[in-house]
């Protein structure tokens, strides 16, 4: 029973933990991630490869495969915990309430069926419609995503379409059942820049038309700036910063976010070299103690050996860093002011 409660966000991810039990040890791919997505909102999830952003999405869909397992937390869709519904219910939610599009349009469509077949399959799985109606819906959807001559294209096989066209087909398939949430995992990464822009425009217009929420996973901050209402920055399986998009771009707090923003080339600026974040992502089997970013952080200080909590540094702005909201190193001792410094001080005094 789905109770529509307008005071609750559409999707709440709470303390989600997905671990991979490999032969070499346990990889905590997602380790205590929480964020929420409101009705019709677009949340951009940013981070380097392997930071756990895709695994979070796959966990929401319950599509994690061996040796991975969701070991804790909850995923509430309109208040219902998706991690506790049975498989048949989950299948019905997939593609119906939550749909997903993937990074690789070239390989995400089944080569032995026509595009129309695949879209109408998605339709008929969730709605009691006849074969012909499902096909008509497929053609309609292809039209909607801007594919010219949709009736003919529906009869074509994936290998007869270009990458951009295939991504449109994927979007058509994902949206054919009017989901409330679309998870887009790097939807434009594999496409040419011009096609990227077209696909983003398409997603924007469909978002308006269907009033759906989008979880937009990308490492491209340009895409985030274009699309997102809120931003979640992930690093090594954790959320390190979270806020509305304007704040993240104007006043980033976490040094990782600052580094990401500094590493975008800007037109019209004369710079000899592009800023880079020094070092590499830590080995997930051997994470540093304390702050996971400290080895690459320009502000690293002794207190960073204690894991910083994700705390509110301004209204609606969370950051997992010991720096004060103003970006200063936290003062320790009698002159320390504010909760943050107190937390830092108590962390320092606590036995490691």
């Amino acid at each position, binding site marked *: 029973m789905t109770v529509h409660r307008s005071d609750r966000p559409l999707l709440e991810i709470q303390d989600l933990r997905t671990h991979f039990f490999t032969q070499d040890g346990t990889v905590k791919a997602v380790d205590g991630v929480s964020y929420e997505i409101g009705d019709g909102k677009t949340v951009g999830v940013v981070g380097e490869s392997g930071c756990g952003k895709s695994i979070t999405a796959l966990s929401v869909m319950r599509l994690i495969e061996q040796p991975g397992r969701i070991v804790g937390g909850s995923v509430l869709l309109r208040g219902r915990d998706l991690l506790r519904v049975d498989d048949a219910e989950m299948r019905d939610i*997939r593609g119906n309430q939550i749909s997903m599009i*993937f990074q690789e349009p070239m*390989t*995400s469509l089944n*080569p032995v069926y026509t595009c129309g077949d695949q879209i109408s399959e998605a339709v008929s799985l*969730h709605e009691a419609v006849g074969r012909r109606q499902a096909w008509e819906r497929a053609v309609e959807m292809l039209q909607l995503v801007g594919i010219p001559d949709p009736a003919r294209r529906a009869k*074509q096989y994936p290998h*007869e379409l270009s990458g951009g066209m295939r991504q449109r087909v994927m979007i058509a398939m994902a949206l054919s059942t009017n989901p409330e949430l679309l998870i887009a995992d790097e939807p434009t990464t594999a496409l040419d820049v011009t096609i990227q822009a077209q696909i983003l425009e398409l997603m924007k217009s469909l978002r308006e038309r269907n009033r759906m929420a989008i979880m937009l996973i990308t490492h491209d901050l340009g895409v985030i700036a274009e699309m997102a209402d809120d931003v979640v920055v992930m690093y090594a399986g954790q959320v390190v910063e979270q806020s509305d998009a304007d704040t993240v771009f104007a006043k980033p707090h976490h040094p990782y976010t600052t580094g990401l923003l500094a590493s975008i080339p800007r037109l019209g600026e004369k710079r000899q070299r592009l800023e880079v974040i020094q070092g590499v992502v830590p080995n997930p089997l051997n994470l540093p103690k304390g702050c996971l970013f400290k080895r690459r952080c320009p502000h690293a200080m002794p207190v960073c050996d204690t894991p910083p909590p994700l705390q509110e540094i301004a209204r609606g702005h969370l950051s997992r860093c010991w720096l004060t909201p103003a970006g200063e190193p936290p003062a320790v001792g009698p002159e320390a002011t504010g909760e943050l410094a107190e937390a830092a001080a108590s962390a320092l005094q606590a036995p490691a």
Partner: protein
Amino acid sequence: MASGTVAVVRVAPRASRGLWGDAWRRLLRNRPALLGFVFIGVFVGTAVFAPLLAPHDPGALYPPPPDASSGATGPYPPRPEHLMGQDLQGRDEFTRVVYGARISLLVGLGSVIFGVIIGGFVGAIAGAAGGRADNVLMRVVDVLLAIPGILLAIGIVAWLDRGLPQITIAVAVTNAPIFARLLRGGLLAIRESDYVLAARSVGVPTRRLLLRHMLPNSLTPIIVAATLALATAIIDVAGLGFLGLGPPDPRTPEWGTMLTDSTKFLRAAPYLIFFPGLAIVISAVGFNLLGDGLRESLDPRLKK
């Protein structure tokens, strides 16, 4: 081209042919495969129209040629009434070669179909279930693959007793592990593919995922392997016959048995070796050529 002219290339929208259409076109451009088709056509045509082609009864004994000295026994060399000669008992060799095609086709095809079914079933379970079931089934397959095919077939015929159904089963069992391994490997690779993830993400149930999305994509190597297996099956059947494990009824015109019965007269009557041997070669080479052609046309990466 004169200056100022503009070459207008009209690209007509290509009609949708699909994967199989494309593969078919590539196959028709492959000369060895076409030759394979011709050989197979001769073989299958002979088998199907055997009663129309053969002038005599494959089991009946016919009198020696009139010029033979009295008291002489077969074999007798070819002459107009008996194009390929007569064997030791005086049976018409041509008729027997023609009817032999039926036996070969029936047993060969039967064993491959049977082998694909058993092997496919085992492979599908192993590939779909994974884990323990996969491990157990694949170790059995490894054991079967470790035994040379003809040796395994001999063992099975010796165990089940001689006869055409037994030969079919024996050859099927020797072929099945190949199909099991092929299908399992294909399914494992496809399970990781993006389109399977995409299908799961729209809520396709597991059984439908396996039957409608994964199996059709893993069939191409099976088709190729089955075609090639037809060639080996024909040779294996003849081989069993040659080793004396052919059908027990001496009237059954089985090519391998015909060969072994004629080895004693290799010098006196080479025609009794030549024609059944040629028949085996033509049918086996036909399926081999077609199988290679299919492999190339179904896998565009192999194209030069």
